[in-house]
C-alpha cells in the first residue's frame, strides 16, 4: 500500500483541478553565485512579509497542501522564520530548498520545532575544490556539510540534490557516498536551464547526451533499469487522452514578485497575486486554462511519436523552445538515449540520433521520476466511526 494513497490523493487533486502543491520562491537573492544558476540575483521588488502571508492564506484556502519554499537563498530573508512559522500554523506540509550555509545549530533546532518535512540542499561535489568552484563561495562545501550534520542531529529529513554538469559529472558517486554517510537522501538532477534573460551560455555546462546511457543504466538512480530503458509500447487510447504533467493541473509556481506560472520550468505568465486573487488566476487565467487543456492527442509532433506514452515531455521546456504543444528536444534526446529508439521529432528532421550539441535552448535532460528517494510514505485510511445512515 506504500505510496498508493498518496498517488490516489494526487490524482484526485488533478481531476478536481485543486492546486495541491505550490513552489514559492521567496527571494532570488543568493549568497552563492553558482556557475549554472539561471536567476538574476538582484532584488527587483520582492513581496513583503505581509504580502507573502496573504498569499499563504490564499493558498491554504485554495487547498494547497505541499508547499516548497525556495529561492535564491531563503535564509537571506530576515523574515524567513516568521514566514515559515506562519506557513506551519496554516498546516502546510513544508519543504525548504536551500544551500544551508546559514543554518547553524539554533536554526536547525528551530526548523525541527516548526515541523518542516524535508530540507533539500544542493551539493555539487564531495570535493571542496569542485563544489566551491561551482558556488564561487569559499568553504561553502564545509559549511553546507556542517549544516547537514546539525539538521540530521535534530532528526530532520535531508535530501542532497546533485546537479550534474560537465565539471562535476565524475563526482556523482562521491556525492552519493557523502549523502549515505550523512544519513541524507540523494537525488541527481542533470537539468541546466537557460538564464532568465535568455542567455544560453550556461548550457555549455550540460552533460553531453552520449553520457546519458551511463546514467540510465545505473539502477541506484533509475530503479529497474530494464523497465526504465525498455523500448516504448505502442501508444494506447488512454495515452493519447493523457496530459503531460501536473503543471497547471494540481501544481504551480509563484515568484518572489508575485508572478504565477504553471511550473518553475514553465515561464508562461498567468497572473500576479499583487493584482489578482490567487484562485482567480488559478481558475480563470486564459493561459492557465490553455495549459490544462492540452492532451497528448493535441501535440503537434509528439501525438504521432512512439514514445508518447512513456516520454517525460516537459511542456515548459517545449514552451521555451517556442511551442507548448510542440516537442521538447531535451526530452526527445532523453527518450532516445534511454531506449535507443528515435523519436518522431528526430525522424521528421531526418535524424537517427540526436545532433551533437544541438544547441536547442532548453535543458538537455531532466530526470523527474527517479525512484531513488527512499522516504517511506506509510499510509492508511482511517474509517473510525460508524458509517452514518444519513
Amino acid at each position, binding site marked *: 500500500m506504500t505510496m498508493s494513497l498518496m498517488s490516489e*490523493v494526487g490524482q484526485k487533486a488533478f481531476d478536481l483541478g485543486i492546486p495541491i502543491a505550490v513552489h514559492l520562491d521567496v527571494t532570488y537573492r543568493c549568497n552563492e553565485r553558482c556557475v549554472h544558476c539561471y536567476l538574476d540575483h538582484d532584488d527587483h521588488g520582492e513581496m513583503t512579509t505581509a504580502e507573502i502571508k496573504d498569499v499563504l492564506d490564499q493558498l491554504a484556502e485554495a487547498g494547497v497542501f505541499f508547499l516548497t519554499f525556495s529561492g535564491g537563498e531563503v535564509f537571506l530573508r530576515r523574515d524567513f522564520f516568521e514566514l515559515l512559522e506562519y506557513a506551519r500554523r496554516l498546516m502546510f506540509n513544508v519543504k525548504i530548498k536551500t544551500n544551508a550555509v546559514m543554518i547553524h545549530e539554533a536554526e536547525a533546532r528551530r526548523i525541527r520545532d516548526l515541523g518542516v518535512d524535508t530540507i533539500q540542499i544542493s551539493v555539487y561535489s564531495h570535493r571542496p575544490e569542485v563544489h566551491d568552484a561551482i558556488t564561487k563561495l569559499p568553504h561553502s562545501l564545509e559549511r553546507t556539510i556542517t549544516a547537514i550534520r546539525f539538521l540530521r542531529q535534530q532528526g530532520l*529529513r535531508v535530501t542532497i540534490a546533485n546537479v550534474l554538469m560537465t565539471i562535476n559529472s565524475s563526482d556523482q558517486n562521491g556525492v552519493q557516498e557523502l549523502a549515505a554517510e550523512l544519513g541524507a537522501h540523494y537525488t541527481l538532477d542533470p537539468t541546466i536551464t537557460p538564464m532568465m534573460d535568455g542567455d544560453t551560455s550556461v548550457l555549455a555546462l550540460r552533460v553531453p547526451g552520449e553520457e546519458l546511457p551511463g546514467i540510465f543504466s545505473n539502477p541506484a538512480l533509475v530503479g529497474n533499469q530494464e523497465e526504465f530503458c525498455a523500448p516504448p509500447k505502442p501508444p494506447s487510447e488512454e495515452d493519447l487522452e493523457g496530459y503531460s504533467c501536473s503543471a497547471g493541473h494540481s501544481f504551480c509556481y509563484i515568484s518572489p514578485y508575485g508572478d504565477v506560472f504553471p511550473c518553475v520550468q514553465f515561464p508562461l505568465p498567468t497572473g500576479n497575486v499583487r493584482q489578482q486573487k490567487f484562485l482567480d488566476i488559478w481558475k480563470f487565467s486564459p493561459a492557465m486554462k490553455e495549459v490544462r487543456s492540452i492532451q497528448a492527442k493535441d501535440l503537434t509532433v509528439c501525438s504521432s511519436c512512439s514514445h508518447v506514452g512513456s516520454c517525460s515531455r516537459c511542456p515548459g521546456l517545449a514552451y521555451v523552445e517556442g511551442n507548448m504543444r510542440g516537442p521538447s528536444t531535451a526530452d526527445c534526446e532523453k527518450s532516445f538515449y534511454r531506449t535507443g529508439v528515435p523519436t518522431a521529432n528526430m525522424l521528421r528532421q531526418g535524424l537517427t540520433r540526436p545532433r551533437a550539441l544541438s544547441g536547442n535552448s532548453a535543458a538537455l535532460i531532466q530526470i523527474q521520476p527517479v525512484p531513488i528517494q527512499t522516504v517511506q510514505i*506509510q499510509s492508511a485510511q*482511517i474509517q473510525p*466511526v*460508524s458509517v452514518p445512515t444519513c
Partner: protein
Amino acid sequence: MPENCLYIARSSAIAARALAGEMMVMNSADSTFFTLNEVATAIFQAADGRTPLREIVRHRICDQFDVDPEQAQTDAEQFVTELSSHGILLVSTQPFASEAP
C-alpha cells in the same frame, strides 16, 4: 484510555488540508500519511484541546449524523487512540494550555 473526560488537540508537527470532503494528514516526523473520512474529519477539526471529546461527539457527530451515541463515543475513542499513537492527536484528561493550530 480513560473514558470520563478526554481532551484532544492536533499535534503541531502535522500538516493537514481538506480535499473534497476528506482530510489529508501527514506527520512530518515519520512521513506517515492518512486520509480521514467525513466523520473522522469532523472530530479532527474539532480537536481544539479545550472541548471534551464527549461534547465533540455529541455536537459534531450525533447532531450531524444519524448514529447511536454510545457507539459513536466508543468509535471516536478508538479513532483518537489510533491517531495519538501516530503522533497526530494529543490526548489528555485535562484541557491543553494553548489552543491547537
